[in-house]
């Protein structure tokens, strides 16, 4: 495990998930969620779940809700494109699920393959009835996370915490 960094936003976000009684952290690996997964692996009350495709995580979060537990789904924005059909039961069944999406294909992106899904991710999520809480600066992280957790687990609204590339920093291609 890597040492905590001075500005360890992953640890701040992770602590808020633990505090909100989230017990399953499902994910498809991305640079944006790598440290969150490390933290989950090291924590007794959080179980990381490696997925083969993002839509599996939508179903796992719904399954946890059926027995009164809380789960989150972490993915890169390209994975949003794999989820819409499963978001049908989230919308129709009013399952309060929370997604954490680390963006590619927005601010500073150098890879042309990332732009189409980067631009489509939020419209797709909104079309399926998800509320968007966007993090563009370090100051946004705590209030946006609190708002997304409240909307989901208190307000019963399926929500997405979007970590923008402006916040995460763009991947450098040489």
């Amino acid at each position, binding site marked *: 495990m890597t040492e905590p960094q001075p500005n360890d936003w992953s640890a701040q976000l992770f602590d808020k998930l633990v505090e909100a009684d989230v*017990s*399953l952290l499902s994910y498809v690996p991305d640079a944006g969620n790598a440290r969150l997964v490390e933290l989950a692996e090291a924590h007794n009350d959080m*179980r990381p*779940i*490696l*997925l*083969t*495709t993002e*839509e*599996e*995580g*939508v*179903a*796992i*979060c*719904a*399954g*946890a*809700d*059926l*027995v*009164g*537990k809380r*789960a989150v789904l972490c993915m890169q924005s390209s994975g949003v494109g794999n989820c819409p*059909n*499963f978001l*049908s*039961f989230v919308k*129709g*069944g*009013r*399952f309060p699920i929370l997604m954490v999406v680390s963006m590619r294909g927005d601010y500073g992106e150098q890879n042309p393959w990332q732009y189409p899904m980067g631009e489509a991710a939020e419209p797709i999520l909104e079309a399926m009835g998800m509320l968007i809480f966007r993090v563009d600066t370090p100051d946004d992280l705590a209030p946006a996370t609190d708002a997304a957790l409240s909307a989901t687990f208190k307000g019963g609204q399926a929500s997405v915490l979007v970590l923008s590339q402006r916040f995460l920093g763009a991947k450098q291609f040489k």
Partner: protein
Amino acid sequence: MTKPTLDRREILPQLFPSTDGYLFISGLAGPARDAAALTGDSEKLYTMAGTMGAAVCMGLGVALSAPESKVAVITGDGELLMNVGSLATVASLQPENLSIVVVDNGCHGETGGQPGHTALRTDLEKMAEGAGIASTMTITSPDELADGAKFLQDATGPRILVARVLYGPPSDFRRNLDPAACRLRFRNSYLATA
């Protein structure tokens, strides 16, 4: 491959002689009707009528979150193949309390019986074994149902039972199709007894 002689409408009651202690998740179409007939569309069952491919992972979410319950996923060959990677996800976590029953009719029954891959060369039990599912079994005839029931009760979990069945209609059972009402029904029932 052995030609199946199982009637799908008769398998679940014999594979689950008692449903006590079970929570059931079913995918869409025929398996949902069969599961609804088994349980009388009870509050211990959540069925889907869309979202093809979701059943195994919804069952996995339940199994990991309710480790004291036995969880059974009822799915079909077409649905399982649509998200077959979920077998790897299950295998890596090894939830001991999860059973998967595949009603494998070798076709897409809901849309007119168009042939599926398992009618040709695809073997779901081998795929599950390759994914790393702890216990796997295939049955094709009525005289294997008792062994199938024993497998679901005793084999090390997670376990998958592939029941290769004749092409024919699923159980004639009308279930509640409201996903929100069924969510609350399942959740409230579970939390009242948990």
